[in-house]
């Protein structure tokens, strides 16, 4: 179900070149997750997307949509119909730059950005995001830093990120990094809040409350 059409050399669809790899391009109802839409709705703080009219304004206004595998409009349609695996494994949700254009332009006033957040969260909790995709790593690193210090240091964050995702890139960007450090952009001494206990209590509190609310 729903594998992305991949292309081989000469621009021919893969299944023409390699008949053995033909995949069924049909969605069987049994493979869909009927509860998915509802779950995403909860995660997105009750955001209603069921009355989306599929007009595509979100896709057209999105500055990142040209790079997406599914346009935001398609994502909404797929969530609504329970295409869980396709949605959680796609690149689209990680490309969303949180610029909120879609949220402002949507004629149904669907907060699509919040839906994207919900999907990212769902993908992380299901472990379904594309491997080697740096975004979830970045997010998790960010998370750890803040939990520890209450503030984040962008420098450390970038380092951690590049080490974890792509070693080559670090060397390529090292030059820029060094420039920035020289200009005082990236202080290497991280800042912290004083009341670190509060941050811990805060994070634990959210987890407890969520557990209560969702159980």
């Amino acid at each position, binding site marked *: 179900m729903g594998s992305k059409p991949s292309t081989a050399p000469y621009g021919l669809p893969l299944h023409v070149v390699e008949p053995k790899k033909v995949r069924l391009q049909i969605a069987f109802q049994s493979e869909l997750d009927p509860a998915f839409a509802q779950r995403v709705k909860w995660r997105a703080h009750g955001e209603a997307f069921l009355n989306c009219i599929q007009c595509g304004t979100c896709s057209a206004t999105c500055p*990142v949509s040209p790079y997406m595998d599914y346009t935001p409009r398609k994502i909404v349609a797929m969530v609504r119909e329970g295409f869980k695996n396709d949605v959680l494994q796609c690149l689209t949700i990680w490309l969303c730059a949180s*610029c909120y254009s879609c949220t402002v332009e949507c004629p149904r006033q669907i907060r699509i950005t919040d839906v994207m957040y919900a999907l990212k969260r769902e993908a*992380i909790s299901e472990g379904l995001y594309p491997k080697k995709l740096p975004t979830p790593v970045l997010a998790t690193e960010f998370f750890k830093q803040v939990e520890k210090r209450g503030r984040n240091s962008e420098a450390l964050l970038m380092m951690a990120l590049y080490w974890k995702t792509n070693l080559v890139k670090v060397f390529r960007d090292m030059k820029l990094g060094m420039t920035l450090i020289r200009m005082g952009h990236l*202080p290497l001494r991280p800042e912290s809040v004083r009341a670190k206990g509060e941050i811990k209590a805060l994070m634990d509190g959210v987890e407890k409350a969520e557990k209560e609310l969702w159980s």
Partner: protein
Amino acid sequence: MRYLYYPGCSLRSTGKAYEESLLSLFRALDVPLEELDDWNCCGATAYMAVDEDKAMALAARNLSLAERQHGRSGQTQLVAPCSACFLVLTKTDRYLKGNPEVQKVVGRALADAGHSYAGTVTPRHPLDVLVNDIGVETIAKKVKSRLGHLRLACYYGCQIVRPFASFDDPRTPSTFEKLMEALGAETVDWPLRTRCCGASLMGTIHAVGMEMSYSILKEARRRGANCVVTTCPLCQLNLESFQQEMNKQFDDDLRMPVAYFTQILGLALGIPNDKLGFNKIIIPPPMTSGAPQGGEPARV
């Protein structure tokens, strides 16, 4: 009106120039900015992806701290210069007032951390404060050197006018231009003033971020701007520091200065350059009406 200042992590690292110029500017305007004591990370965008509730809990602690520091008179204005901080603080304030689920979860977390938020704080972006509280006219009166040599592309970026801010139209904003024109600078009419620069993708899906930023700079140049002015530390970093790489990648010779609006204001108000953080940006804007002279491009 009392202003509390929430710097956010960026202004303490990549956005140092922003902080320096902002503080100098407000000092020059006699508007005191008092730093929020023991503030923590706002919970910004990247965090939202992992756990929106935790992000909002983090933001809520800052709102609660603001109430502690300045009371619950409803007059407290929390000035957040970073667009992402401004957005997250505003969003949290709104959701805590309107969304029962968020109220439950975040309320509980706040209580566990010994905090509570009564909803009396208004997060503000300095652009909003400058234009709507202090006033364009007041600022215009204090201009010492008019900036006729600047043709500015005012770049709002995404998160200050979208989706929550009510101080300007989210699609066709105009406050930024008004403010800059009051300094004698020219502004260009360009359609990309609120288009996302792709900052959050620079570190992750780099190629996409590069194309997004490049298209913005290219259009600013096409419209005849000699400097892009930003209101956000992420946009500034992003648009400025990758120009060398862009030139290589897109076979171009961009050298577009990208300054903070506070720096430009500072220039007009006669604040000395060294108090505006110009040494901390790579390509400074043209300083006089002479030929664009910008600094040396970053040595890389």
